[in-house]
């Protein structure tokens, strides 16, 4: 029994990694006032870029860097639409997600002549632990930055009362850009952890909604780093359990259909969103263009 629990704990931590990294990215950008529904897209391109770079260079570290860079590039595109052009953030984010869904197959066809998954990466070239450590350190680091440093205070104000920040002479746009690009890097790393840590290649629509679950975790965690950490763990447990539950039999009813178990994380997300919104307090200027 103890062995099972340990197993479960390890699986939870592994599965939480992409969620955590993405959620921390979301936290940064949302605390600065920008809604970030494009986390999903950034994860997807991050996963793809990481797989491609690792395949080419054999180094997962470079792959991770590549994933972050892809995330940053996509975040920059989002930033251009949302900051100077003042696009509707939700619509622009959806566009980014759609773009991110289309780019990997397009490029994969050019590079490897495949339309499904990229070629497999051997174990030696993948991560065994590092992203997990990164994911656990990130919330702590964010907690310190947001609470103790000048940049953190200004970021908080950018999301809560940007006019006050502007009146104090700080460029709100600069703060938001920084937050957005950092979010892109984090989400991209989260995506990278999907393809070169949790599995061995990039496959179509690999993120399957994790970017949105990260957002739900963020809402559950009330936009604070440490509670969000626990929220991500909560989702990860559900994911870990789901894999083990497949093939389960319930006395009298027979085998539970695999699809029912597969949809559990999504149902959970909805329950979270239904139950806890209203109690948590979003940054006040979230979504308002300056």
């Amino acid at each position, binding site marked *: 029994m103890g062995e099972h629990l340990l197993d479960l704990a390890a699986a939870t931590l592994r599965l939480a990694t992409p969620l955590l990294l993405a959620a921390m990215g979301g936290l940064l950008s949302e605390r600065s006032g920008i809604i970030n529904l494009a986390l999903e897209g950034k994860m997807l391109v991050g996963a793809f870029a990481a797989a491609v770079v690792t395949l080419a260079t054999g180094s997962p570290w470079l792959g991770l860097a590549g994933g972050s860079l892809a995330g940053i590039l996509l975040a920059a595109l989002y930033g251009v639409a949302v900051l100077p052009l003042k696009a509707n953030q939700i619509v622009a984010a959806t566009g980014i997600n759609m773009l991110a869904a289309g780019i990997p197959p397009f490029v994969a066809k050019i590079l490897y002549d495949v339309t499904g998954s990229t070629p497999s990466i051997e174990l030696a070239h993948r991560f065994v632990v590092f992203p997990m450590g990164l994911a656990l350190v990130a919330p702590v680091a964010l907690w310190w*930055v947001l609470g*103790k*440093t*000048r*940049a953190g*205070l*200004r970021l*908080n*104000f950018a999301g*809560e*009362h940007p*006019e*006050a*920040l*502007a*009146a*104090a*002479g*700080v460029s709100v746009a600069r703060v938001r850009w920084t937050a957005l690009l950092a979010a892109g890097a984090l989400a991209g790393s989260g995506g990278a952890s999907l393809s070169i840590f949790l599995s061995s290649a990039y496959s179509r629509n690999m993120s399957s909604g994790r970017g949105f679950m990260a957002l739900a975790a963020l809402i559950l965690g009330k936009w604070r780093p440490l509670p969000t950490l626990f929220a991500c763990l909560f989702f990860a447990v559900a994911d870990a359990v789901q894999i083990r539950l497949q093939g389960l039999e319930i006395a009298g009813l027979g085998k539970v259909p695999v699809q029912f178990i597969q949809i559990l994380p999504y149902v959970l997300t909805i329950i979270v969103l239904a139950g806890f919104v*209203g109690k948590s*307090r979003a940054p*006040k200027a979230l979504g308002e263009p300056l």
Partner: protein
Amino acid sequence: MRGVAKAFGACVANRDVTIRVERGTVHAVVGENGAGKSTCMKMLYGLYRPDCGEILIHGKARAWRSPRDAIAAGLGMVHQHFMLAGPYTGLDNIILGDEPSQGFWRWLPAAWRPIDRSQARRRLQELMAAYHLQVDLDVPVETLPVGVQQRLEILKLLYRGVDILILDEPTAVLTPQEVDEFFTNLCRLKDQGKTIIVITHKLGEVLRYADDVTVLRRGATVAERPVAGMTAPELAELMVGRVVHLQVAPPPSPKLGAEQLRLAKVTMGQRGEKPKLADLSLVVRSGEIVGIAGIEGNGQSDLLRLLLDPGRYLHRASLGQRITAKGEINVLGRDVSSFRAKALRALGLGVVPEDRCQQGLLLSQSLWTNFLLGVQRMPRFGRFGFIRRRQVTSALAAAIKAFDVRPADQQQIASGLSGGNQQKLIIAREFIGDPRLFICAQPTRGVDVGSIEFIHQRILDARAGGTAVLLISSALEEVMALADRILVFYDGKIVQEFRRGEADEAKIGHFMGGGSRGDD
């Protein structure tokens, strides 16, 4: 002696504004809405660039590129809507942008250094002592009363060594007691050598506390006078350019009819928190105006919310509705405790909401579309679900004529109308159904003086016609001028009731601020 002088030439919203302020005085800048006061001050404090003309501080011409430059030159502004972020502490709000940090961290780039809050705290404590501006620095700003928040804003400027303070409508949200305290603080600041410019439309305060006044009208300076010896009507006339009747002639005694609105022992609040409305009872009859006087935030908004959708609060109509209410509410003779917004409005009452832009209008739409809002349920305007366009058009045309809404174009976008015209449109719309009960909140907020007269007259006409009127206003003069009975709201309760003429501003103000009968 010239302390400070500013002069602008022919600029955009301000045509020709000249303001001369002496060092160490309190200088008032007055003018109607749209006269250019805010624009002029924004140029002064660095948000806008003057297109021509110049700003002279202590005799030297200055130009800035941002508010930060202005503050560095010693000039800062406290806005009407405070620049404070609610969940953060007073300390954090004050130091934002100029956070001190220990020298130890100099190797990090400036923005990333950790904040040394104790250093800031020490300096602020010195300032608080020097200027007698005590504030609790370590609680979330949103828990502080408005008067204290204002002190925080002033401290923000003092922390940065500002000598010239500009205050925009500083007393708009203060109780009369807080106002007195505020002006005491002002005098202290003056004694310490600070120069203060106050933007206001409260003529009474100008006469009591200012040394000099500059009057702006339509973007230009029309008068610069010392205050001594001026009277309110004089000032008003300068502001508007014609003789203004500040007070409407008192109407005849009301001819009372049936009860149209009754609240009995109404309590409203969130479990575990102080109730927003406590044991409230009031009655409004046909033919009378009942005025609710009180500083904003004492429960008036909650009362309005409750009246507009009683079922939501009284019957816990939906999951997660945390604010609940108890008690009896009768509207137009019917028990409405189970009525939701739609049913309530279907009864046919007229409502002018507090915030006309957010709650009364669809700003991006035409007058025609806006006219439909709220009356769409009337059979006159809709049949079998279809809009009866011709009816709407003709009703709107009649309303525009009767209420003198300008411009008179039905396709004009609502956001292009002045505040007064917007409000007139809303009132015209609400009167369409000839309501027996009329609830109006802040009817003349942000409305030019000419329209104020018009609106007040219309309210009195409605009263004469037998409508029951509930007037909620934070402008005490308005309540005193119009209401037959004044109910003073404080902390969600009615603390006192006066009949017309029974009390003067000071007495009512006493109760508005929470004073009780004993301490007269």
